């Protein structure tokens, strides 16, 4: 597709269950980011991929959160033993390459996955 695709669009789960959120980036975009937006908050950075490697995981809130990326394309964000405070919209964004004088840091976002933990 032409844009960033995320699935599922909505996920309702019970506290303690594991969830997987998927992101399909724009074709050719090597940089991939996960953010989350909690109610009334701005977007909060979680993790950054360049290709398949994740040089910056500093935003992951706890060791229950992990992410991987395969083939320099699809990424999966996994939340283990979900808690109610994990409820948020999880957004994926991608960018064409490494920022430079020519490549500006314009990130393109998917529609997000709304996670509700009951």
């Amino acid at each position, binding site marked *: 597709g032409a844009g960033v695709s995320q699935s599922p669009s909505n996920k309702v789960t019970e506290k303690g269950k594991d969830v997987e959120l998927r992101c399909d980036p724009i074709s050719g975009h090597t*940089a991939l*980011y996960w953010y989350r937006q909690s109610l009334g908050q701005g*977007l909060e950075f979680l993790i950054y991929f360049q290709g398949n490697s994740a*040089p910056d995981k500093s935003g992951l809130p706890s060791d229950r959160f992990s992410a991987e990326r395969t083939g320099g394309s699809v990424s999966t964000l996994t939340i283990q033993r979900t808690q109610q405070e994990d409820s948020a919209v999880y*957004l994926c964004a991608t960018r064409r390459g490494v*920022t430079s004088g020519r490549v500006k840091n314009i990130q393109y*976002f*998917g529609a997000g996955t709304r996670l509700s933990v009951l």
Partner: protein
Amino acid sequence: DQQVKQNSPSLSVQEGRISILNCDYTNSMFDYFLWYKKYPAEGPTFLISISSIKDKNEDGRFTVFLNKSAKHLSLHIVPSQPGDSAVYFCAASAMRVRGANNLFFGTGTRLTVIP
């Protein structure tokens, strides 16, 4: 610690008039700034950006102004249209700093343009 702040959670403007959305930042390493627009149930859509080497960037009805000494930027929409009604997010990054270049976002301003 919120490094990018949008202190007005909402703004209402009459159609045809100017909308001015404001944003402040605290990190002097930020050198690239963006505005995103978000409709309900959609992801943020890139609108306009500005590098710290400039103080103004214009694209059609949208103009972004940057005041580095005040660590302040603003988005002007002229003339405002009902379709501009959305939540606007200000974002910043430090491109000169090696690393993730992740964006730091404000909490957003909900703009309502009244027909």
